[in-house]
């Protein structure tokens, strides 16, 4: 409990610092201009989106094996945070694409894989939000996460074969040291935010379980 406020302050400071590095320190990119600065949020967000879905996948496997509500709460929290970062990716991506490629959307493998992965986990989230709260729904969602995450390999291969003529985007090379200076602190700042959000959502889901249990006990005590 003590760590959380400290980390929240650190996270806020880190995000502010990342903004400073992104908008003031990082050099203006020659061909794309200011739009390239989207990259410092876009790329870390994509990594963290994947991290969220991977943690959701792991939590779901654990849940299928031990049936502990905690594992499921963790998986749900991780998917939710992953979706948040995925939304950032899918909103900033087209802005960047418009500036760089002149179109809002391109059937580029990485882009398409991200979009489909987002759809799969969005379905997970809708299922959890509206499908009911029972144990069966949790299992359904866990199966979906366990099937959905590895599926991305197939999606990627399929889209790559489909649009094989597009060159892979080079993101890690072609960066000047100033650009790296903005990218990695930005990643660190968002990573802190990621874990803060994960912690909050996980706690919320666990508290909800506790409340549910107390309600049930109360109802029993009242003798119905």
């Amino acid at each position, binding site marked *: 409990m003590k760590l959380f406020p400290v980390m929240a302050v650190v996270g806020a400071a880190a995000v502010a610092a990342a903004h400073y590095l992104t908008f003031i320190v990082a050099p203006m990119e020659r061909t794309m201009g200011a739009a390239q600065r989207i990259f410092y949020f876009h790329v870390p967000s994509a990594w963290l989106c994947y991290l969220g879905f991977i943690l959701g996948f792991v939590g779901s496997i654990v849940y299928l094996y031990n049936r502990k509500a905690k594992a499921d709460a963790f998986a749900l929290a991780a998917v939710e945070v992953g979706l948040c970062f995925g939304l950032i990716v899918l909103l900033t991506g087209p802005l960047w694409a418009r500036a760089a490629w002149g179109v809002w959307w391109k059937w580029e493998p990485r882009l398409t894989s991200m979009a489909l992965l987002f759809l799969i986990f969005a379905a997970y989230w809708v299922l959890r939000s509206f499908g009911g709260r029972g144990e069966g729904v949790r299992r359904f969602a866990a199966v979906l996460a366990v099937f959905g995450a590895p599926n991305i390999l197939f999606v990627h291969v399929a889209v790559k*074969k489909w649009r094989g003529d597009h060159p892979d985007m080079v993101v890690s090379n072609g960066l000047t040291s100033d650009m790296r200076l903005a990218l990695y602190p930005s990643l660190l700042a968002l990573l802190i935010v990621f874990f803060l959000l994960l912690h909050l959502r996980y706690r919320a889901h666990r508290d909800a379980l506790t409340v549910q249990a107390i309600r049930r006990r109360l109802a029993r005590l009242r003798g119905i």
Partner: protein
Amino acid sequence: MSGAAPGYVAILSAVLVKDLRAELRSKETLATMGLFGLVMTFILAFGFTADPATNRRVIPGALWIALLFAGTLGVGRTFAREAKDDAFSALILSPAPRSAVLLAKMIVNFCLSLSVMVLVTPLLAIMLRVDLLPSLGPIMLMLALGAGGFAVVGTPLAVMAVNARFAEVLLPMVVFPMVSPVLIGGVKGTSVILGTTFGDDGVGGWIQLMLAFDVAFGVGGLFLFERMVTE
């Protein structure tokens, strides 16, 4: 009734034969799927009919959309029959290996969607006036692989969906993005067969991709199924 427990194959074929026989007697799923496929054919023809060259380019997409939609209808019905009288619990409580039950259901779904496509494919060819006869074999192979991919992913998810509210809405939402590699492979592979797309390695690569998908999710689903259902 004999002392020894029946083997895996015996259980698999028992469930399979039961389901196919029930279907052939009532014909409820086949009839609804078939009629739905017919309606789809008209809708797709209304939507896409153009000049002969364009028709040849759009027919793969039309075929695969029909397969996907009709397949969803069938997959959703898989366990509806078992839900009646709580027969599903009996299946699960029996000492039969659960993966045998799932495999049987996958095969049933595969057969149902493929038989709908046997109806829809010639109709679409007639309506869009595309001569599919010279390449009918490879196209049916692609559709079979696609129906397989749909069955191996859709069946286990349909089992799980019976627990959820809005199951009939949730299921397609969950299954469609999951089978997108099969859809991409099927559409592109079919257009390579029809000569409207030229892939660098022809149709073989797409067949490999779909086969890999079917095997990976089939084996994965059967392996996980023991963990999925416990009641």
